[in-house]
């Protein structure tokens, strides 16, 4: 299975994960400061900033796009409960 690295910049830790893993599946286990509300793409609480590897996440769904717009997300911000890791990426809480 393809592997990818996700680095949590706030706690300076990297995890090797199978491609397709959602950020939420890793960030809580390692204690990153990304926090979660609804966990189902509604509230926007888990907004994170992608500092490297922006293109290595799955494309946002129509619903995620809507929530990002409503929360005035910046260009390199995504929801950690939705984004799937496809290649090496570095993230931090937004």
């Amino acid at each position: 299975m393809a592997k990818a690295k996700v680095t949590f910049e706030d706690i300076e830790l990297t995890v090797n994960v199978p491609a397709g893993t959602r950020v939420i599946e890793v960030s809580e286990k390692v204690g990153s400061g990304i926090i979660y509300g609804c966990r189902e793409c509604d509230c926007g609480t888990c907004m994170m900033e992608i500092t490297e590897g922006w293109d290595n996440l799955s494309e946002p769904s129509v619903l995620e796009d809507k929530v990002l717009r409503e929360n005035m997300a910046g260009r390199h911000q995504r929801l950690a409960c939705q984004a799937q890791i496809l290649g090496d990426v570095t993230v931090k809480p937004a």
Partner: protein
Amino acid sequence: MSSSINLNLMQGKAVQLDDGVYWVGALDPGLRTFDIILSTANGTTYNAYLVEGDEGVAVIDTVKEEFSDEFFQRLESVTEYSRIKYIVLNHLEPDHTGALPELLKRAPQAQVCISQRAQSMLKALLKDSRETLNYTAVQTGDSLSLGNCTLQFFNTPFLHWPDTQCTYLLEREILFSGDVFGCHFCDARLFNDKVGDFRFSFDYYYAHIMRPFKNWVLQALDLIEPLSLKMITPAHGPILRDRPRRYVTHYRELSTSSLSGELAHNEKSLIIFYMSSYGNTARMAEAIYAGTDQVEGVRVSLYDLQGGETEPFVDLIEEADGIMFGSPTINGDAVKPVWDLLSSLVVVNLRGKLGAAFGSYGWSGEAIQMVEDRMRGLKMRVPIEGVRIKLIPTDEELEQCKEFGKEISSFLVGKSKQQGKVLELAEL
């Protein structure tokens, strides 16, 4: 005291502040608790303003819904609804937008001017008419003309909501600041040089409303300080016409870190708080303290929560780079003094601070994870799993505590073994 001001207030008339500028707000002297969290010993005011230009009128903010009649009465004393060209909303909280739906019915031609971030909130406030809303979103650098006078906008987010902005009346040098420079203080004499001593209310309001957003306050001050200021007209409390700049200076003082001058360059501050019932968590705290102190570049403080009040501890936490909490587990929970402190931290910004937890337990030991979760909820970083020890710590376990302390301090100065490490998902 100017008797004409009081007379106008009594008669429900607008109070003139300057040429073409009026206060059209409302007094709420009976209020004792604002928004659940704030107390006030003499009520508050909901300040709304009207600016009259030769090409139309702008209304700046409105009042809490219950006070709408007073607001409309004052408004009608100086203008007709058909003349209202703009409604500027510096902040969309209900105490400033309560009369908005009715105002829009009476002045349907008016265009609402709000910040970019306020758009979704405006639509939520006016759900019934969201399809027909006539509004424009403005940002720093935007302005609008009322003919012989100009309103300039300054985007000042998070003071204290994401939507907040300030509006400046260029020709009169008046800053309509929203909640910034405001306070919950009600005095019918209205002006800072006439009302009673409101210094406590001013600082109390800052401490509870603006303090969590100090960095945003400093950014806003960078925009406000270059302005010529004849008067600051906030959304609550006295109108600041006498030496308004001293309030700006005071805001900068309040928003500037006091400890930064105490610490050496690049030195980090770490505070360990603990509470112990049988002395076991205290022993752990001492060992952790000894470990943290082994790392150069970290100034560590150890406090027993039993011996201190919450408020000064909140002040310490605000300035610290790292915070550790030690709590025994009693009845499956962390102990109350720990929660008391953790629930008092909403007034300070904790984002990005390092957090860690530890504690002794008898049966289950849930307290540590609960405290860690709370710290994450407060947007702190909790990179290192806390230490839980069943009952009395052995020498070996105390050594483990010492290592834990050392690791936390090392993390603060960027020298932790964990930093830069690559883990496998399956190991987690």
